[in-house]
């Protein structure tokens, strides 16, 4: 394979980056967080609806970026709303990305300490993770994309195998009836599902790196459908096995599903470790891409070299990651950051797009 020098990514790579970003800590808690709100087994309908909403928001972002070919949002937001507000918005987005990467790394550390490395100090887990992440992102978006291309197929295969094996304790009655209490519970679940689909917002920087930015929408649709399918399968299998009342009692329901059965005579008896391993890889991918998005933002905002910024962000992410004192604070922190994103990447792009269209800013006709 030849090495690219221009640091561009193909459409397929864009798809992979979006999928890997979306598949983060959500898989482990999704069945619980969703069922807590929906209170029936209809959460999977909320998932599909949430995905549709996310798609709309994502398409807005892509359309916005297509007005400014070759530029990331950090570079063109000032053209739209002026340098002061623009810088503030960029700064907010950077903070958001830093917070998300810190959150992901902390969740990873918590679960690793609970199930895998009980007496390993948290700093050891977090730091080794961060340094490897740093090593990856210093080589730019292309290396990130190529690593994700390796991770994603493994994730899909292992997750599907794990879910398939759990069919032993699956009981279809637990996911019935469909829409037994009408549409209202489904609507209640929408907020949660929108939050698990966070990740589409990476499109604020990706079109600038794409070889064919005009295929942005296509990449977005495929990139978000992969997590949708995986989430749907996970949700149905977990609720089917644990039942609605059981799911809400479990901190990490997807892991509990894996811990609820053993398969004898298949070389391995327990499958939660496979799930944990691929899931750590997925958290790693979410962590690196948000880390990269954050440092890229800072570099472009202050027009400085990106490498020192990456090194500089390490201690900041570390401190933010260790700020929540316990699990409740951690989950609250995650909820807070995610709800910020609804405004930052749901409403803001629509506004920006409107301003661009009305005042005819940017290169209206892009040449592909």
């Amino acid at each position, binding site marked *: 394979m030849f090495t690219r020098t221009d640091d561009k990514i193909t459409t397929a790579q864009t798809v992979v980056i979006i999928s890997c970003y979306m598949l983060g800590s959500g898989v482990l808690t999704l069945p619980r967080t969703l069922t807590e709100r929906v209170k029936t087994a209809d959460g999977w309908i909320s998932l599909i609806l949430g995905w549709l909403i996310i798609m709309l928001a994502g398409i807005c972002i892509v359309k916005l970026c297509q007005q400014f070919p070759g530029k990331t949002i950090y570079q063109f937001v000032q053209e739209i709303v002026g340098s002061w507000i623009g810088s503030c918005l960029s700064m907010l987005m950077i903070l958001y990305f830093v917070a998300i990467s810190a959150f992901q790394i902390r969740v990873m550390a918590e679960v690793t300490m609970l199930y895998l490395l009980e007496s390993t100090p948290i700093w050891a887990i977090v730091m080794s993770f961060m340094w490897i992440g740093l090593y990856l992102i210093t080589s730019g978006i292309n290396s990130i994309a190529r690593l994700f291309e390796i991770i994603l197929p493994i994730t899909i295969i292992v997750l599907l195998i794990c879910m398939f094996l759990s069919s032993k304790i699956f009981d279809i009655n637990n996911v019935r*009836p469909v829409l037994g*209490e009408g549409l209202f519970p489904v609507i209640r679940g929408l907020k949660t599902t929108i939050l698990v689909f966070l990740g589409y917002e990476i499109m604020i920087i990706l079109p600038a790196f794409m070889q064919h930015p005009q295929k942005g929408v296509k990449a977005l649709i495929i990139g978000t459908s992969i997590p949708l399918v995986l989430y749907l399968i996970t949700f149905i299998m977990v609720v089917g096995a644990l*039942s*609605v009342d*059981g799911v809400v*009692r479990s901190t990490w329901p997807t892991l509990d599903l894996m811990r*609820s059965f053993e398969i004898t005579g298949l070389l391995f008896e327990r499958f939660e470790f496979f799930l944990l391993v691929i899931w750590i890889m997925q958290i790693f991918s979410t962590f690196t891409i948000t880390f990269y998005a954050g440092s890229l933002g800072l570099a472009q905002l202050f027009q400085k070299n990106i490498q020192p910024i990456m090194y500089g962000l390490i201690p900041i992410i570390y401190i933010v990651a260790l700020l929540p004192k316990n699990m409740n604070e951690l989950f609250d922190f995650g909820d807070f950051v995610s709800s910020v994103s609804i405004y930052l990447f749901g409403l803001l792009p629509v506004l920006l797009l409107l301003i661009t269209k009305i005042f005819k800013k940017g290169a209206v006709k892009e040449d592909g």
Partner: protein
Amino acid sequence: MDSMKRYFLFALSILFVLCLTGCWGNREIEDLSVNVGLALDVGEESELEQELAKEGDSYPKKNLITATLQTVPVLKGKSEKQSGSSKSSPMYLNTEETGDSIFQLYRQFSLRRYRPIIGHHLKVIVISSELSRKMDLNKLLKFISRDNDIRPSCLILISKEKASEALISSQSGDIPSFHLRSMVENQFRNNKILAPMILTKLDGIMNSGSSFILQNLVSAKGEVEFAGAGVIKGKINKWIGTLNEHEVEGLNWIRGEIEGGVIKTYDKSGEVLAYEIKSAKTKIKTKVQGNDISFHVSIESDGRLIENWDTSQVPTDDKFLKEAEGYFEEELKEMLHKTIHKIQEVYHVDVGGFNNKLRIQHPKVWKKVKKEWDETFSQSDITYDVKLNITDYGSSTK
């Protein structure tokens, strides 16, 4: 390259090898006590514990629970190994601890045995009916479901007598916990065994507040047998009584969990007739009329005439087969009648899975009645029809 620099790098990389010491936190598996079974009884200090307490083993506690922790492997002396079967010693070690917090009981273990206990392989939890009559199961199992080592795949059983007796085996070489775990798999041979209740499922059921049944154990002379089921009333999560084997069989038919087994009855001259179940299917239809909720259970099964003691009758005769089917259907109906009577009139609990049927078929009605479901259920009408087909008579025609 500058040779000094190379030497320096070489020395540095050797130095880094020291950091790769690997598993410094390792524990040899032979040096661990693997906890395979747990029995929970009403708190009563054993003689040994009382003596230890006299010697000064005491800490602030209420003697509510006696936990028997079964661990493997057992340390064996060399002489014992060589003497072979002349003096058989058990393969497991049962340690009794009395107190309240189950987690603390687990940790007390380390004061008596030097090999640290690990919970990854906990297979069964046996709870005595006496204890579950007094204490909420939710409280008893809280630690188990929260612990990160113990897997939620472990099995929950009820014991009529002392639970610790269920973890004793007279057969040498047998580990009672493994024994119990495997016995549940015999469902395809006998329809008096309930579908395994693992912690995951139990957690969901307890949270939903519905009543349920757990496989009951009886034990005598070191032998443990599955016998009937313990009925746990929802909301309070306490034991209220037992169902006998016959009723469990009936319940399995109602719940559609028959995987195999037998129906035995007597013909008019009192001779034995037996039917081997090949397949069984249960359908429950719910009907809601105003405030009245009624259920109709229809059962269909295919099977084989496997035993008839009245040799004057030959199964090649269609008339005899029809007659035999009639006897079996009569027997099954009788069984269903007794079972339904017991759960509706005696215990007033729905343990037959009717709540799920109503929830799925009439979700709006279910939402209204689920608070007081056990009471509503006791008043609802249950009708049933049974269709058994004898499809063959095995390898003997006469």
